[in-house]
């Protein structure tokens, strides 16, 4: 069946998953459902300790067995040790057929590949994967479909009961012996625990893993003792150097600076740029540079931001330092400056849950209130569909993150992408895989020019008297193809290895097994 972004979703995939094809960004508005619920093992006896001696003991106490769904968060990013330490023990126990429901996985989790190969892990749900897990999925090694979901889509699946987590493993920078968990302090400070909050609420068993046990009560807690079954203390839950680095040095690459300048000019020439506007941006060089150039203009014109959302970095937090924003709502901290900021400004830099951030199936999330979001993309096509998960070689190599959520919510969604990545055109006729629908994407900023979605005549009008190099998306594609040629399509096999789940749970696209490339005679 062809879905609303023109992608063929095979009938057997719809049948196998029980899912609908994607029907449009607002197709599920007012959807009625009953929330899922977790089993609770009540702690009535005040004398019972929650501390576990080691991973094996905690796994046994939680009743780990074949076929379970276990979950992890990605606040430790590429510095995470928790996933691997838990999975190694499970592997040793010979448990099979597990579903991993992670908020995201990275190269740090390459050691999972042998467990995918031997059937320890047979299903996977994640915002995305990088490195060797991506290669393993794309070469058909995972037994069942990999489900790539957005941050909002994952928490929707958990809260709606579509996914039921048996055991949640929550790495916590600090914990007390009764399971009050905080992201601040400790050796593996990550600022917030936003992505783990739903897991603590909806999993049958919740295991906190920390390397810094602190006196009771550890408050204010991101996750309360009322949700936590066991606390395990280990030597190290992560590598701080890879959890958060110092603020990235602002780019001096003129190409990125040019794109940042274009982006800022788009923002300030659209009608939402007024006192109290809201804004979210990412961690790329151009995104950071555009926050810096936007800050200058806000100072010059005396315009303040109402709220900023993140994924936060130092330049966004500097807005708070300069009193140019009322409040920052935070789901993840990408550098030490952001972590420092949440500690320094507890009244105006606030941790929010993934559900508050982006869940389409609650009664309203922050993304719905965004004026601007600045995003990146691996590929954008002439219908403004974006791909942020599958590389132009067909291999899964990225994550949806909050891309489709923020794009769907924001009044003005700007995607920054250099027109050419080496010999690969970023603007093309058809993206390899659709992860964010073109109807949610408004402006594409490249180093060669800017294209505005024809669905947004209001933005076209707003920008027509500026000196910005506005052209059509087809013109951008043609420029790219004129320089590097039109790429031959990636050669995929027939087997579907994964789905791109839309944030509302329907199917946006499928990912097929990659075939070895063969040259035509």
């Amino acid at each position, binding site marked *: 069946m062809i879905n609303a972004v023109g992608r063929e979703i095979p009938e057997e995939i719809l049948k196998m998953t029980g899912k609908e094809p994607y029907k449009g960004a607002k197709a599920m508005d007012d959807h009625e459902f009953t929330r899922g619920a977790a089993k609770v093992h009540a702690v009535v006896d005040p004398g019972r300790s929650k501390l576990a001696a080691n991973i094996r003991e905690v796994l046994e106490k939680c009743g780990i067995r074949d076929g379970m769904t276990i979950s992890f968060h990605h606040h430790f990013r590429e510095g995470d040790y928790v996933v691997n330490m838990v999975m190694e023990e499970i592997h040793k126990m010979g448990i099979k057929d597990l579903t991993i429901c992670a908020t995201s996985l990275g190269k740090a989790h390459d050691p999972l590949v042998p467990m995918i190969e031997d059937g320890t892990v047979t299903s996977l749900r994640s915002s995305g994967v990088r490195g060797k897990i991506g290669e393993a999925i794309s070469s058909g090694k995972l037994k069942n479909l990999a489900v790539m979901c957005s941050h909002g889509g994952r928490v929707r699946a958990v809260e709606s009961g579509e996914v039921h987590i048996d055991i949640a493993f929550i790495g916590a920078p600090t914990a007390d012996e009764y399971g009050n968990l905080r992201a601040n302090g400790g050796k593996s400070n990550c600022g917030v625990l936003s992505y783990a909050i739903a897991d603590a609420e909806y999993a049958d068993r919740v295991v906190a893993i920390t390397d810094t046990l602190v006196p009771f009560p550890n408050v204010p807690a991101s996750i309360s003792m009322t949700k936590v079954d066991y606390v395990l203390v280990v030597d190290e839950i992560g590598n701080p150097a890879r959890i958060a680095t110092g603020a990235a040095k602002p780019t*001096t690459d*003129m*190409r990125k*600076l*040019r794109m940042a300048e274009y982006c800022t000019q788009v923002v300030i020439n659209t009608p939402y740029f007024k006192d109290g506007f809201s804004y979210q941006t990412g961690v790329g060089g151009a995104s950071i540079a555009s926050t810096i150039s936007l800050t200058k203009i806000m100072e010059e014109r005396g315009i303040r931001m109402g709220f900023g959302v993140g994924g936060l970095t130092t330049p966004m937090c500097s807005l708070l330092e300069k009193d140019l924003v009322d409040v920052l709502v935070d789901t993840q901290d990408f550098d030490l400056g952001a972590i420092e900021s949440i500690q320094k400004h507890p009244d105006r830099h606030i941790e929010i849950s993934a559900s508050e951030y982006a869940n389409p199936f609650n009664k309203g999330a922050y993304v719905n209130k965004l004026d601007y979001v600045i995003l990146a993309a691996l590929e954008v096509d002439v219908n403004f569909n974006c791909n942020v998960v599958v590389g132009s070689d067909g291999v899964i190599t990225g994550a949806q993150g909050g891309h489709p959520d923020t794009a769907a919510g924001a009044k003005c969604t700007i995607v920054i992408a250099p027109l*050419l990545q080496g010999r690969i055109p970023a603007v093309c006729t058809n993206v390899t895989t659709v992860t964010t629908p073109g109807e949610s994407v408004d402006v594409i900023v490249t*180093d*060669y020019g800017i294209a505005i979605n024809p669905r947004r005549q209001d933005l076209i009008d707003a920008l027509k008297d500026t000196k910005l190099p506005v052209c059509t998306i087809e013109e951008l594609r043609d420029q790219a193809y*004129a*320089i590097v040629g039109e790429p031959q399509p990636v050669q995929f096999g027939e087997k579907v290895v994964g789905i791109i789940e839309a944030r509302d749970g329907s199917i946006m696209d499928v990912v097929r097994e990659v075939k070895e490339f063969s040259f035509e005679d």
Partner: protein
Amino acid sequence: MSHPNKKRLRRSMMFLNCQKPGLIKDPYIYKPDSIMLDLEDAVAENQKDAARYSLFHALQEIDYHGVERVVRINGLDTPHWKEDIRVCVAGGADVIRIAKTETAKDVHTVEEHVLAAEREFGRPEGSTLLMAALESCRGVLNALEVCESSDRLIGIALSGGDYTKDLQTVITGTGVELMGARQQMIIAARAAGVQCWDTVFTNLDAMDVFEEEVRMIKMMGFDGKSLVNPRQIDIVHKIFTPSQKEIIFAEKVVKEIEEKKALGIGVFTVDGKMIDIAFYDGAKRTINLAKASGVYEGDL
């Protein structure tokens, strides 16, 4: 008749290493007036041939969207310059920049080979322009003869690094060591009716010092500057492009002089400043610069 592009706008001339395809594939996105594709110092001695190969294909295949394509060839004291010229002409370069020029004879030597190459590759005779880089004390002292050496010559550029070595000093950042050369060259260029460009500024961490230097050379009369990084382009253009205030004043001066001339009035005031015919050329130049820079919206 002179080449129609001999006096085009050349505020910014950005160096690019021909060895680096990523650099030469799309520098037009930064909108410099000219790019200088370098076969000389940026290219390693054993990579000259590879760089020429890249250069030829770049000149042939890439649409530079109206940005002038200058090629800096190797010096006449090297084994490379003759082949460099053949490649430039075969590829269709707009201008050849002669490195280490010291005398009119140097220009004549290059000119002969350019003419031969134009005949060899069927390019119109005279279509390849020349510019001369002065990199030594002798070159600077001979600036006038170099400027007057050829109808193909669009102007002279100072190459500060080699020049200060020859002068037995260094680039100090104050500009004092370059003062004499800059003065001598701009005077010679104006006397001969050709253009004149200042040397590169290489400290990319000191953009404010760069900006000061650009303001200074603009005041001295230079037409523009050689650049090493695209971040420098917008600064040069900002300084070399007349402001709206300057344009409006120049418009008034031109219009008033023309009107008053008809009435037989020689001296009058515009916005409180005394104006006579001596201001006419300067005001016209401002308007022309504004037009060439794409910021003129009037009807003169």
